[in-house]
């Protein structure tokens, strides 16, 4: 995430192309419909495994090849790396809280954006909820310095 000041002119267009493909893929897979996700979570249609597995397989192949055989990304000059986050209790606690929310609603952030794209305006309630939750978490953390270090952001 360096070189934010003098960014390659293709940087934003590439983000837009990749994001569009991401959103299209989410909609194509059915994950933009909370009902399909809930069917998975109720063990009635395990298709979501193929969505996450397919996406991780493609991405994993690309990450492996890039980290082994390529040097710097052309648009940022940054080195290719893997996504690693330090492990601590908050990884499990956060996963559990997210899991309850996912199980109640069938929503995760990416699928919610895609859901809005397929015309599902009620999902705005879910997205508003996510912002409320993220704000509450950040507000709470901001005034509890002693646990501050555990709150590493994700990508």
């Amino acid at each position, binding site marked *: 995430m360096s070189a934010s000041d003098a960014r390659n002119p293709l940087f934003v267009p590439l983000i837009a192309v990749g994001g569009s493909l991401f*959103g299209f893929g989410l909609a194509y897979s059915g994950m933009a419909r909370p009902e399909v996700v809930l069917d998975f979570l109720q063990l009635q249609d395990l298709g979501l495994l193929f969505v996450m597995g397919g996406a991780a397989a493609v991405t994993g192949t690309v990450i492996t090849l890039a980290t082994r055989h390529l040097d710097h990304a052309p648009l940022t000059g940054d080195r290719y790396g893997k996504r690693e986050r330090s492990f601590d209790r908050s*990884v499990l606690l956060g996963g559990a809280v997210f899991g309850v929310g996912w199980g109640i609603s069938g929503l995760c952030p990416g699928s919610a954006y895609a859901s809005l794209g397929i015309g599902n305006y009620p999902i705005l309630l879910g997205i508003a909820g996510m912002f409320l939750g993220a704000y509450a978490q950040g507000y709470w953390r901001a005034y509890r310095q002693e646990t501050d270090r555990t709150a590493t952001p994700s990508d």
Partner: protein
Amino acid sequence: MLGQFDALTIIGQASFTGLFPRGISQYAIGGVLIGLGVSIIYLGTAITPGASTFFESTLSYVSEIPRFNRAKYLATRDWRLVFTLSMVAGAAVYALLLGQGGWTTDVRPWRLLGGGVLVGIGTRIGKGCTSGHGIHGLASLSRTSFANVATFMAVAIGTALSMQALGVTP
């Protein structure tokens, strides 16, 4: 398509259709497209773009709280906005071309709002969501991400089955 199922026993066939009543092609193809989308960004920029940091980075536009205004959010908030809006646009293209236009959910409003709040809290505590941990993290063979994904999968399945048992539909 049928040919590949011939080797399966009748029992296997029955459980296969039972486990995947909508088939698997839409799921596998969608997953590959998702992977291609994030891979294009990764190859060009070395960034593994997750979907949930958008909350903090966007809150930095409107909140004075220092946590939301850290350099990493300020430096990425513009492209994260583009990334998210393009996800909305990509899904809209799908809906217009292949998805019979618009669609809305029957899931109840309190589930959307309440679940959303917990998703917002949980992804921020847990350092990522289904795309950050579930795609990039698993793709990186990160043990942290495997632990996070296993946790949220198990808890979400337990939650959804409990809701179903309580008769909450949709």
